[in-house]
């Protein structure tokens, strides 16, 4: 650990402010709490919100996992893990089950998390209504008055135009029957994991300076119509070429040499485990 910096980099005053805001976020599920968001040595847009949350929570008893697009080896995830490791000396892991804190960009791990774990999501766009309204003052009002008609209209128009709701990732959800929330750019595949989960989800948008939360056992419903229900991505008969999984979110890779499409588990930690189990090795 670098002796020049405070434990977990942030000064205690910043941690305190973030901690107060986290508690408020948890008390009002799905509502975006504004916070000071001091600068990090990592650029804005690259996970500062998630990092600030992790640094405000983390302690020597934690075990940290950091993923990006589901992958522990992704360059930015590695970089973030290195930074947090430098300022805390914390144990790290690529195994979802062993982690107590998981910081993630754009995916929820395949293995269900327990109430001894916390998932911290990095958020680029905290405002679900931004698609229909650029002004923060106005979207604040809309949330305050639960005036979500314009978003519903947007979805309706989508269906009229495309016979489908065209939103892929960042699919808007209704939290605790009160707030429409942007779940961050996780694929639709991951949306059902938010509903009545065992684990606490914390969302950090550093650049936009917002924190929000979904406590365990909370109602989280993707927006849908009676006749146009929410659907997750379909992989049909595709399997992971590496471990053979049929029930995970898959990355599509196009081979340079053959032009063929192959598929691999996006959640590399999970893929490792399944493979190891098949090969009869401890993971």
């Amino acid at each position, binding site marked *: 650990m670098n002796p020049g910096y405070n434990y977990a980099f942030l000064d205690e005053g910043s*941690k305190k402010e973030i*901690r107060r*805001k986290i508690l408020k976020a948890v008390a009002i599920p799905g509502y975006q709490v504004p916070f000071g968001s001091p600068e990090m040595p990592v650029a804005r847009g690259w996970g500062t919100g998630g990092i600030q949350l992790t640094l*405000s929570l983390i302690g020597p008893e934690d075990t940290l996992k950091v993923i990006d697009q589901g992958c522990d080896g992704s360059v930015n995830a590695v970089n973030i893990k290195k930074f947090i490791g430098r300022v805390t000396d914390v144990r790290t892991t690529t195994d979802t089950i062993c982690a107590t804190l998981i910081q993630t960009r754009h995916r929820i791990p395949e293995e269900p998390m327990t109430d001894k774990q916390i998932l911290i999501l990095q958020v680029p766009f905290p405002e679900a209504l931004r698609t229909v309204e650029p002004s923060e003052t106005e979207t604040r009002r809309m949330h305050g008055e639960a005036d979500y008609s314009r978003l519903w209209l947007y979805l309706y128009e989508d269906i009229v135009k495309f016979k489908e709701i065209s939103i892929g990732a960042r699919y808007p959800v209704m939290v605790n029957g009160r707030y429409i929330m942007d779940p961050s750019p996780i694929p639709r595949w991951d949306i059902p994991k938010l509903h009545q989960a065992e684990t606490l989800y914390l969302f950090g948008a550093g650049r936009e300076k917002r924190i929000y939360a979904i406590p*365990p056992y909370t109602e989280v419903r993707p927006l849908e119509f009676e006749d146009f229900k929410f659907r997750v991505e379909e992989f049909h008969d595709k399997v992971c070429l590496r471990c053979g999984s049929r029930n995970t979110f898959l990355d599509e890779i196009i081979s340079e040499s053959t032009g063929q499409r192959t598929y691999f588990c996006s959640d590399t930690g999970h893929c490792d485990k399944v493979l190891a189990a098949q090969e009869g090795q401890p993971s």
Partner: protein
Amino acid sequence: MEIGDEIMLTQKTFRGLLQAMSHPGEIIQMDPIKTPVPTSPEIELLYPALLTLLDHEVGFTVIGPEKKKGETTIAELTGAQVKDSTEADFIIIFDSESSGEITQAKRGTLEYPDTGATVIYRVASLKTGEDARPRVRLTGPGIKPEGITIHPGLPSVELDLLKEINAEYPLGIDCLLIDPDRRLMGIPRSTRLEVF
């Protein structure tokens, strides 16, 4: 206490507070933190929460007996500013009831409901036998679908006030209850209370 110790102790305390607020009704065991100078047992008991959450950027008030003394001590210990109940971000109640004053607390606005106050109660006991009254059934976010029944150590009068204040969700106040054995329970405004 060394600065380094304080950093670690407040981190641990915060994880307890977070667990409490995200699992309303669940009882969390807290570790003590020694005050730098001798204070009353009430303040010593609440000190971990106060040290973790309060600083010069927030306002607070004490409701109940020894109000002035409590406010002076807590201001010295944390640097937080003394305010009245309508402006305080944190309301400290040593006696498990506020004589109605809790209705003055900030509940936030529709645009910024998070500005509603946090109330820290010192209650007589969080863990009591089956016959303890009043018993409350809690439902809502953080609680399994079947709900949880608890004894919050607050009198019915106070519980009724909380229900009334939090009836217009998302406006409301969020509560932390701490008993002399350092047991902690959280009741955020999102929790629905049914008093038996």
